[in-house]
């Protein structure tokens, strides 16, 4: 079953890539032809770029408005969105003449475009790499339910503390002093930026060290503690990575409106102030 699916995936990618390269080639030849004839490629490339931006922004409408599903699946739109994004990035630099603009408005417009494009590339990277990392953690977690699961872990820890098998002072003290704060508090900003297993390893080491002070019949009680620490750390890992998966959209989506408005203003101005006849 997996074999045919992979084959279908590559066929689709090859088909899309071929179409994309074909369109890019045709567009490039068109611009080259204009340039060879002293044409103002900045106008043609600008109009095409503006059209691409509008098309890219329409993906959001497709996702929001279900009546547009006749225009293709959201997955197809996403593929189209990605390829067009790459084309827009190349066309953007052609439009600028591979030179950063010098005007205030144009610099702002270019900055917005680059922020959107950069966040798009970042999002593409995240969506292509993070799912594998999250899958490697082993359990599927919904981002919005992470607080609930975190709460459940706290309750599990509280239940362990009340369990008669763990009625040792050492374990109770560890749960109260080390485990519950770990379970209830969020992770540092540094961890959200660079998720790591440092705290997890530290706590597990501490739990392991408790065995030296526990009687042999109580040592089995450290196992659920280790499990709680691992689950909480996995949840935090999910939270950090899925937070990024959702966070880049704040830049990518929120600036789209500004980009369209500024691009429209830019189009108006260049037509009004164009130097030709």
């Amino acid at each position: 079953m997996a074999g045919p699916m992979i084959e279908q995936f590559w066929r689709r990618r090859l088909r899309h890539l071929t179409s994309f390269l074909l369109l890019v080639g045709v567009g490039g030849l068109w611009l080259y032809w204009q340039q060879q004839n002293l044409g103002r490629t900045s106008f043609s490339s600008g109009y095409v770029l503006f059209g691409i931006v509008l098309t890219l922004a329409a993906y959001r409408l497709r996702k929001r408005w279900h009546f547009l599903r006749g225009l293709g699946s959201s997955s197809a739109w996403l593929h189209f969105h990605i390829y067009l994004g790459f084309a827009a990035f190349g066309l953007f630099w052609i439009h600028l003449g591979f030179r950063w603009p010098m005007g205030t408005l144009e610099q702002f417009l270019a900055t917005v475009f680059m922020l959107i494009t950069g966040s798009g590339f970042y999002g593409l990277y995240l969506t292509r790499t993070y799912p594998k990392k999250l899958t490697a953690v082993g359990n599927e977690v919904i981002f919005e339910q992470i607080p609930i699961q975190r709460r459940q872990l706290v309750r599990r820890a509280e239940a362990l503390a009340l369990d008669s098998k763990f009625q040792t002072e050492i374990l109770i003290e560890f749960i109260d002093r080390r485990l519950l704060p770990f379970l209830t508090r969020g992770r540092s900003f540094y961890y959200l930026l660079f998720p790591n297993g440092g705290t997890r390893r530290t706590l597990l080491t501490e739990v392991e060290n408790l065995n030296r002070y526990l009687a042999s019949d109580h040592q089995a009680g450290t196992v659920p503690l280790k499990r709680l620490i691992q689950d909480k750390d996995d949840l935090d890992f999910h939270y950090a990575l899925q937070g990024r998966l959702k966070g880049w959209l704040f830049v990518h989506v929120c600036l789209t409106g500004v980009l369209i408005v500024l691009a429209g203003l830019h189009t108006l101005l260049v037509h009004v102030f164009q130097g030709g006849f």
Partner: protein
Amino acid sequence: MPAPHNPTDGDRRPVNVLQNNYHRPNFPWVCGNASIGEPCWTGPTADGACGCRAECYPVARGGGWTCSRPLHRGGTCSEGPTKDGQCCHERPPCVPQRSLRAQRQRLSYAVLCLVFGVGLIIYGSGKAYDVIAPGPLSSPHAERLAHHGNDRCASCHPQAHQSLGQWVGGLFGTASNAKPVTQTDLCLKCHQRDLCHEYALVAHNVAPSALAELTAAKLNPQATNVGGAVIHQVSGQNVFGSTFRNGQPIACATCHREHHGQEIDMKAMTDQQCQSCHGQNFHSFELDHPEFKSWPRVTIQGIRFDHSTHHFKHFPHGNRPFECAQCHRDDRQGNVQQLVGFDQACGSCHQGKLELSAERGFALLQLPSLDVEALRSSQQDIGQWPAKLSQDFDGRLSPLCELLLRADRDAGAGLDVLGPGFDFLDLDSTDRAQTVAAGQVAWGIKRLVADLTLRGNDAIRQLMQIVLELPIDDERLARLSQNFSPTLVRDSAGLWFPQLWQEVTPEQVMPISSIGVELQANSAMREPDSRRLILPNDILARLLQSEGVAQDERQEMLADNPLQGVYGSATESAKPNQSQQATGPTNVPGPVSPSAMVPATSAATADSQRSEKKNSDLPSQNAAIGLETPSVDDPNLLARNPLAGYGNGTSQLSMPALEAPRDNRLSSNDDVASQSATGRQTTETPGRMSNQNAPAQEPSVPVSPIPTPSGAGQSKVVGWIRDDGDYSLKYHLQGHADLWMKEWIDVLIERQSKGNPQTWLTFAIGEIAAPDKAGNCLLCHGDRVRPDLTASVNWTSKYRDPALKGWTKFNHRPHTLLPGLSDCRSCHQLRETPAGQGGSSPAVANRETQTAGNVHLAGFSKMAGNSADLVGFTGLNDGVGHRSDFHSLTKTQCAACHQSGSTRSSCSTCHNYHVGQRVQK
């Protein structure tokens, strides 16, 4: 298992309650307790209120209320709802939070509002143009517009003053139908001096027809000397409306892109831009640029200098080194090799020859020797002619005299028969046509002398205008006449033609002149026999009368006439009728009209006899009117000269030579034309009378000490001189850079370049300026074509017209800084002419070619039929037909340095785009 909920039965629960506990991220609100891991099971309402204030939302059923708590929340409670339908298990309300999607949306709106807000602030602050400007201006434009404030945008963008609505309307074509002012129009408003305005927006600023001719010439396989590349016959068209087809206007902004910063050179062009139109594309200069066929392009040099002969013959003969730097200097821009002046470069060898030529003088008037008896026997009575010149036919007319005589209808006809430069020695007395022509010329000379006597410079002006069909303004007249005084001619007339005023009446002087017409009209009212001696005051009186001057005032003015007392009293002159009565209307001998001489032989003989009788009676007649008849042989003539007070009263008038300061000398490397026309004050030599002793007759012509040419310290005669030895009025030239000679050559060549050149005009130019003639000017001075298509002589060494941009450009300075190229001869290698082999250098060959047929005007004559479109780029000044003294450069010499990746080798390094004539600043 509870029964499925029916939403139509008045259930008030939120929608997600009807589903399950699954979180809906597309919902705008989430439970406020979700962040602590304990969200309610209902979630917030659609408007963001807490939707879970109780465990359930009771359902009305069967007239009462039933608990609806779902199973995953514990199922139906035992207590059940209250009587009013409320859940009995209330919960503390939460503060719902927005979902991530809702937060993104709000942030989007916030950013958009922020941008709008900032935009409004900028718009209100008046800095909008600073913000929307796509970048800083280039330095030249920035400097020019630095003080324009917010109006600086409107200096180049006509829409800058329009409103936003007009901008949007303009996009959709709702603007005014009137032809809008374009940015290109505003560009040309400032740059109109830089371009040929007519073709400013055409490719290369060249007329399409001319460009097509060049392309055709390039495509012609027979073409050997046509540079440049082929132009596309059909170019592309921008899909957005900008056309670039041949002949279509090209906006300035097509190539010159502004707002790219101060450091950007807007004039810099890429090879791709050049080759977008040129069909013959080159990858690089060193690889596939065509080999030079003739570069540096041979131009008609400002100074025709034969480098080869001087280098290989003259300088070695004088045992002097031939160094380029002796004559060539770097100018400030280093664009051309500027020449030093004549004195420094040429004077040491050529000054003497020029002075000899100048001392011979150039005749404005020179009487030929005519066999009066032979003419009379051929029924051509020319009246009184100087005895010394009446024995046989000999001599020639001076070219200027011949030129002025052509304004006289009869004399012009005679000159046409005799031909230009006719030597009277060759006159066949048996040829009636020639004898008649000689008679016409003789009478024309007399009328010319009379006209010059009466009107002086005005006569010269009018005669020149008639002959050359050119306007002669006062400044030019001043330069042409150089203080020429009627007094000098009057004295000459008195000496050479004592009976002039009996033979020639003012009516016959210049019938086509206004004076002549006026006098003719008046003379028609007189009796046929009332011919008498018309004095200058008579003419002046008639002029004043015709101009409506009152009689009293007229008499007062006539009394002030400086000529009174010379030919008669003012009173007598002012009262012609009284004078006429006193002398007797029939006793005054009248002149013999040339036209009256032409009829039958008997009549001519009778007229001739009558003329002789009248002439013999002239002294007594003149005495009767108080006029002394001058005679060449009269020893007291000069003593009665009214100018005698300025000299010693004898024929040997002399004045000490005025030695002009050296600074006033006319330097040959100065622009001769820039010098103001100044009067000449000369010294006299024995036997010659100069007008310099006469009081100024032309107050408009300034008189200043004349500078003596090279050789200061020596007495030198410069100016008008009457030579009674050969009966001529001559102008003695200053030497090199004589203004009088320059102006005469200029005016003649200007007429020549107007088209339809006459043989006599070409002859006159040749006689004046040809290398072997008196002027000797065109030996060295080449020709050039002015913007108005008139030709002129290159009087200066700056033969390159700064207003004329050609296809190629070159800057010597960066090249000569290189050690290997510091010697001019590293690039400019002379064509060697082996001595003793009879070969002539290219310059000599050019000169020989041009002097063949005494034309020497190859450049002037060939341009007459060309259109204005071709000026500046088809080689009118390119010396077509000339050979350079130097070998042409090869591409290899340039490509040794100019290679891709090392030294600039782009198209624009050596080629200009904007060519043609610019308006002189």
